[in-house]
């Protein structure tokens, strides 16, 4: 099993502290070598442009080399919650999936496959068709795995932020080397925003967690996000913000063009940067605040941001005052998190 560390490795406190120390050290001015995680904000005007060269350039900017990717079996995890005709801003756009698959193949990936376990829908095949992703899978000969209905295997919950002692993961995770979170830039009515870290909820099989993934809701939504990320430790994130969603996301909000792809290898850093693109202070999103210094940095000066400047791509996303998770983001007097 390529990812047998899932079963056997649990980071020691010393390792976790060391990881935190790297972030802290990287944040210090005057370092000879900047160890801060790199996050690239790349412009992409629409889904009609060729996104593959944009992603390849972004990969270079964040330090992704052929040597790191070559021979790897890579699972792309897009965000497919549910679908509605003409509302492409709900899901990761199929052209982003296509571009990511081609860009990773160009770097030498042995196999790129796509997997998702939609949180609201049991007919995943229908969701693939309605979202437009099915045709991309056919065109690019990409294998798809319905994560909701895969056989599961149990691993220790590395995060232990929720009360869950173990997590049950789809067996495909034991067969691949990398997980890439292909998320959507959206507001979320329970967590404030859904980005690369929250997207990994879709890894968890509905057969064991339900539709919606109610076991995780009972265990704590924010805590479960942290636990999943700490346990599966994804290697790369790409947030599709070409057209995102504002307002009552992640389903009923309205389309919000931001014209960006946010790319990086450290998910809290990617999400913090993506939140800033939306005009949201990431420290006010509870799971991001809790991830800081543990799973990755979220402070602006602890992230080596490359590509477009944040000021040039800032696109304030509308939040809804009657939604408590949004109110916590709007209320400057409150602390982090709903």
């Amino acid at each position, binding site marked *: 099993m390529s990812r047998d560390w899932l079963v056997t490795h649990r980071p020691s406190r010393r390792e976790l502290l060391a990881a935190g120390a790297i972030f802290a050290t990287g944040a210090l001015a005057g370092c000879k070598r900047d160890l801060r995680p790199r996050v690239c904000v790349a412009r992409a005007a629409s889904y009609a442009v060729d996104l593959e060269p944009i992603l390849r350039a972004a990969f270079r900017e964040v330090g992704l080399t052929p040597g790191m990717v070559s021979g790897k079996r890579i699972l792309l995890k897009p965000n497919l919650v*549910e679908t509605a005709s003409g509302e492409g801003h709900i899901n990761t756009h199929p052209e982003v999936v296509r571009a990511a698959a081609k860009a990773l193949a160009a770097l030498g990936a042995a196999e790129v496959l796509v997997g998702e376990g939609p949180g609201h*829908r049991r007919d995943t*095949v*229908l969701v693939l068709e309605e979202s437009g992703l099915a045709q991309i899978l056919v065109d690019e000969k990409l294998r798809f795995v319905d994560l909701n209905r895969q056989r599961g295997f149990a691993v220790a919950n590395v995060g232990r932020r929720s009360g869950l002692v173990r997590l049950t993961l789809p067996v495909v995770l034991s067969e691949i080397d990398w997980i890439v979170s292909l998320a959507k830039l959206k507001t979320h*009515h329970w967590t404030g925003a859904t980005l690369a870290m929250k997207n990994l909820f879709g890894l968890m099989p509905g*057969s*064991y967690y*339900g539709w919606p993934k*109610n076991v995780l809701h009972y265990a704590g939504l924010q805590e479960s996000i942290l636990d999943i990320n700490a346990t599966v430790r994804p290697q790369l994130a790409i947030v599709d913000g070409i057209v995102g969603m504002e307002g009552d996301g992640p389903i009923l909000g309205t389309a919000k063009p931001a014209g960006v792809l946010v790319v990086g290898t450290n998910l809290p850093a990617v999400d913090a940067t993506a939140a800033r693109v939306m005009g949201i202070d990431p420290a006010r999103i509870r799971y991001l605040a809790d991830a800081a210094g543990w799973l990755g940095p979220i402070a602006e000066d602890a992230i080596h941001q490359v590509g477009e400047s944040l000021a040039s791509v800032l696109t304030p996303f509308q939040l809804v005052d*009657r939604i408590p998770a949004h109110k916590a983001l709007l209320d400057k007097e409150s602390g982090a998190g709903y």
Partner: protein
Amino acid sequence: MSAALLDPSTPVLLESLAHRALPDGSALARPGETEAAMEATVWRALALRLGGAANAASSRNASAAVARQQAADGRVSVSDLHPGAYSPTSIAILAWHGSPEFEDARRRAVAFLLAQRGDHFPRSAASPVTVDTELAGWPWIERTFSWAEPTAMALLALDSADEGDHPRAREGRAVLLDRQIATGGWNYGNSRVFGSDLRPAPESTGLVLAALAGHTPATKVGASLQYLEAFAPAMRTPLALGWALLAWSAWRGAAAPFAATAIHETLARESRYGSYESADLALLAVAAAAPRGLLAALRESA
């Protein structure tokens, strides 16, 4: 029902499923898998149950494979490691219907189901969701909230066991009607959040309508029946199509006129996705063999 009266697609589907079966009667989730999956096993058992006399031996073998996995308290779970994921219990009750050999297993499964309640709690005026949280249906996973699809599956199972008027069944139907979206249809089980109606899903709507048939006046689900009529002819995926056909036949008492074409075209598209889930193919076989609804088919085959 004799095999001669079966929809012509039923034998094709059962033959396809036979290639995914193991000698002990269990079934693989997909071709190429190495371990049996309970969802596939129990759905294939139900499809074989309706497959006519020619499949009687296979049906017994598949039903026995399900029975071997039944827990002492009557539940049938997705896996030994996850006893709380007991949704296969409802399908097992349907698969064991009318078989004296499995009557004890079926009775224990029914007793288990009747004893289960999804988590429920007092309503809060401040809650952003509008569903009645005091009502209890059935959850996907033990000790969590009730959702539309497992509740509907439990209702079908209880109805087949002549428990359709049990207080738990009546409460389950109340749950489903409470979760109906104002404009018609159901999704996983939430109708309105933060002041906005959510969207229905074809696969959820078909299943819930199939479960409500015979117990609910059409006037209470009028918009949902209209939604079914609108989406059903266009469905070409086995899960959504299978439940759409079963809902249609349960409410109309006759097979949908487009059923044969839709099943044929759905099967022709399988290679587009690699392969369909065995459970979904079995559902399609069940729909093809139940032109007057699932419960009628079970009664006729007993």
